[in-house]
């Protein structure tokens, strides 16, 4: 993956708006978080292949980045994004990695299920 290029990601968000898409949205501290450090609160969630259609999608921030997608009746939001998959021109693959390179957050959009 590459470090996020703001304008390329914004172009992709524009290209994918106003159509039914599959979304994968994930946030995780990892299954070992509390095992390694009991003061840490283990948290994780993901939703995969839910359908979403957004009328406006923006990437914001100075890095790590935030993305907000405005849907007909609500929002999809992700913070902490650092990387994108430049070679994937049909889908938007975004991820946020921590200082150890581990994935913490992911936001993916595609016309086909993941």
């Amino acid at each position, binding site marked *: *993956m590459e470090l996020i290029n703001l304008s390329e990601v914004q172009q992709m968000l524009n290209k994918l708006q106003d159509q039914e898409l599959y979304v*994968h949205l*994930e946030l*995780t501290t*990892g*299954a*070992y978080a509390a*095992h*390694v450090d*009991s003061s840490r609160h283990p948290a*994780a969630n*993901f939703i995969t292949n839910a359908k979403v259609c957004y009328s406006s999608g923006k990437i914001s921030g100075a890095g790590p980045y935030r993305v907000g997608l405005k849907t007909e009746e609500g929002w999809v939001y992700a913070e902490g994004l650092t*990387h994108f*998959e430049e070679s*994937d021109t049909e*889908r938007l*693959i975004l*991820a946020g*990695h921590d200082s*150890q*390179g*581990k*994935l*913490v957050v*992911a936001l*993916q959009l595609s016309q086909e299920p*993941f």
Partner: protein
Amino acid sequence: MTKRVLVVFPHPDDEAFGTSGTLAKLIHEGWQVTYACLTLGEMGRNMGVPPFANRITLPAIRKLELEESCKAIGIQDVRMLGFHDKMVEFEEPEVIDGEMKKLLDEVKPSLVITFYPGYSVHPDHDATGASVIRTIQRLPKDERPEVHCLAFSNGCRDYIGEPDVYQDVEEYIDQKIQSITAHRSQFQAPELVGDKKLSREDMVLRFGVESFWTYPFEG
């Protein structure tokens, strides 16, 4: 008659740290090993340093890593069962238990290696071990294989005592190192390698003995 061991873990790389030396040793002694890996570890957080994987490509990468690790150990038979990483505990128990029963009927192992349910930290580990134990518990007592479990939750020894099976695998440390390092996306994790390359001596100290708990079946 060939002695057979069935190894059941949920993630590619579960075999590497806890049991690859033991498996290499058993294979050297003529055992036939079947390794059933429930998922492809597709929800793993390690993507390589710098990241060479992503959520999309990770399953295919981890499948190749698993194949390479098993080749290094010499495992003759690898099964990938196709369950989804993190979701093992949410599958219907009869579905997973059914897969375990099929494997047991086919392989007819005299030894099974899996995670100790309740003491193995990751929900997939506990759910996998629980399914293996449930399925074997249902067998007539004289048909049950011996089960050696891995456990590593904090304080687990307060509940289940000390391990009763120790395998000195120093002689097989090269296979073990190859197995561990085959899992490139996982092994580069900083908490494992720190800031220096581990020497063979470091690896022997850290990974030279593998220990297991014999599962105490009821009835």
